[in-house]
């Protein structure tokens, strides 16, 4: 049955984008970002611009993470579903396997393609309507084929169609990112843009003395420290810290990357602890999970003062919270909402383990919520700060996980009652939290710690 509707069938074969998979192993090639936007979203955008109501992703390999990202497409207002093909299926076979999907009307078949260059100002519905059946666009980096267009009087398109830029190496990726940033008005790119060539995400903190040079794109939850120079031609992803006096230009920083202080990143792609030279394709894997410098234990007198201030602040908290603790603790006990969990720190280490006991309270009932808002769950641990075993604020091991995935080597520090990560809204996983903890451990002094402690106490997320 041909109802005249338009749908898009995207075919993904594992071997086609293996070069990208080899570089960015942690995600599906379609979820690798170009100007902070995953490749799949450019294809979805183009499917929508050309009038598609439904989109199917047919793959010969597992695409669980891609499915979890796109889900049913409601985010974009298009219906997305998924199908399986076998690596040996040719085009005829894969169309047979998806016949019901394709039979609804005109089908745009996108193969071997990571990226479609389009201009959102063009009308691709007209282009598609005018395209005769057969291959519409084709190149070494993919093809777009139109199926089910039986119109007799199909005339050549009124405007330019989409194009498929060369995209088979990391160098081509790098140049495409630069080109996309310079032609940003053609695409729907993430971030707020009050002036041309400058895109800013949410929760971007740019410290005094840092310099931003256009063209530049910055994602969400980014901290740029004093003295840094960002741009021109910098594409900064999300959840990123760029430390003091570092320079990032002509470079792409993928999500969750920490750039240590006084580093120069020019003409590079950085992804976590991986540094890539796009021209030669050479990669450098750092041992740390981030591109960051090693924590140096501070001068001993400074450390003693810091410990003293932590102890004094802990004492103040013990006094202030004594009454709420004495009222709420028995109440929570009666309601079976006070649970302790013992764990060893650091995880995985064999020597010098410290046993820490964490309290878990569910945010249920007025007492539970109040107790969490007042941080009553941390109260018993405050005594350990007095004894110098714990810091008041620092790296707080996650309660939920017994086996940390983070190598303990990079958190050579005392665990703390409150986490620096609790001062921020954005950390989503242990890696993010570690990034924030690490930053503050490097830079926070005793007085800063008190400010950060107040921020952690008042943070909505923590409450």
């Amino acid at each position, binding site marked *: 049955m041909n109802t005249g509707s338009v749908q898009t069938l995207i075919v993904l074969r594992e071997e086609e984008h293996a070069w990208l998979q080899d570089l960015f192993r942690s995600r599906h090639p379609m979820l690798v970002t170009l100007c902070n936007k995953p490749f799949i979203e450019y294809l979805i955008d183009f499917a929508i611009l050309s009038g598609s109501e439904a989109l199917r992703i047919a793959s010969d390999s597992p695409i669980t993470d891609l499915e979890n990202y796109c889900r049913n497409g409601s985010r974009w207002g298009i219906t997305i579903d998924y199908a399986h093909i076998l690596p040996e299926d040719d085009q005829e076979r894969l169309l047979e396997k998806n016949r019901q999907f394709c039979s609804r009307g005109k089908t745009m078949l996108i193969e071997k393609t990571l990226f479609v260059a389009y201009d959102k100002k063009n009308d691709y519905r007209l282009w598609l309507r005018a395209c005769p059946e057969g291959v519409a666009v084709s190149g070494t980096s993919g093809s777009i084929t139109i199926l089910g267009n039986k119109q007799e009087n199909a005339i050549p398109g009124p405007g330019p169609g989409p194009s498929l830029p060369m995209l088979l190496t990391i160098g081509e990726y790098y140049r495409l990112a630069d080109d996309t940033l310079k032609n940003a008005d053609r695409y729907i790119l993430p971030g707020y843009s009050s002036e041309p060539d400058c895109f800013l995400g949410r929760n971007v903190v740019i410290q005094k003395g840092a310099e931003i040079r256009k063209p530049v794109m910055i994602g969400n939850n980014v901290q740029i420290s004093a003295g840094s120079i960002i741009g021109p031609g910098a594409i900064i992803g999300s959840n990123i810290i760029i430390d003091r006096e570092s320079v990032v230009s002509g470079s792409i920083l993928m999500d969750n990357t920490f750039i240590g202080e006084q580093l120069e990143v020019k003409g590079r792609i950085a992804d976590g602890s991986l540094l890539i030279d796009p021209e030669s394709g050479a990669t450098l894997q750092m041992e740390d999970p981030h591109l960051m410098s090693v924590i140096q234990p501070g001068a001993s007198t400074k450390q003693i003062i810091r410990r003293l201030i932590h102890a004094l602040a802990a004492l103040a908290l013990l006094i202030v919270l004594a009454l709420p603790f004495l009222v709420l603790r028995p109440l929570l006990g009666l309601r079976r909402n006070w*649970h302790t*969990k013992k764990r060893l720190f650091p995880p995985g280490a064999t020597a010098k383990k410290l046993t820490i006991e964490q309290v878990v309270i*569910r945010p249920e009932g007025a007492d539970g919520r109040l107790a969490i808002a007042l941080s009553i769950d941390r109260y018993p641990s405050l005594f350990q700060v007095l004894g110098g075993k714990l810091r008041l604020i620092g790296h707080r091991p*996650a309660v939920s996980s017994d086996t940390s995935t983070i190598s303990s080597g990079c958190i050579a520090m005392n665990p703390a009652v409150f986490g620096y990560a609790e001062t921020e809204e954005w950390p*989503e996983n242990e890696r993010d939290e570690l990034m924030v903890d690490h930053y503050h451990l490097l830079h926070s002094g005793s007085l800063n710690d008190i400010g950060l402690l107040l921020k952690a106490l008042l943070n909505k997320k923590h409450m």
Partner: protein
Amino acid sequence: MMTFRQLPATNTGDHSMTQILSATLKAELKNSRIAANIARSTAEVFAEERHFSGNVQEFGHTFELAVSEAFTNSVNYRDPSIKDITVTIGFEEESNALTASVTDMNAPFNIHPPEPEITEYPEGGFGLLIIWKLMDEVSCSREGQRNALSMKKFISRP
């Protein structure tokens, strides 16, 4: 026969997260389909009540499938002299996670069996693989003569 009873949380003396629970639901069952259906409904209601932002039906299916697999395991690995086996299924709620447990009287078993090699067309060995793939945390504890397989899934980040 199916019996439901509200049980108080037990303090077993260890420091596991199971102590957090204020109420558990347990049912003794002989029919895996009933167990799986109860698991699905329980998980769907749980997810709806917690305003789960993901797909509620999928969350329900996760528990339906996992409990079905665990139940089948209990039946398959029972003492061959026992004809009729009763399996106890239980649910434990936390603010951000649901745990289903399946308890039987079988001998202890390895919850980390080797993964079947799919290219060799294996007919079995998928049960625990499915459970591990579906759930966030899987553990098995031995309580006297009983095996309790616990399967936990978060609806939001802890």
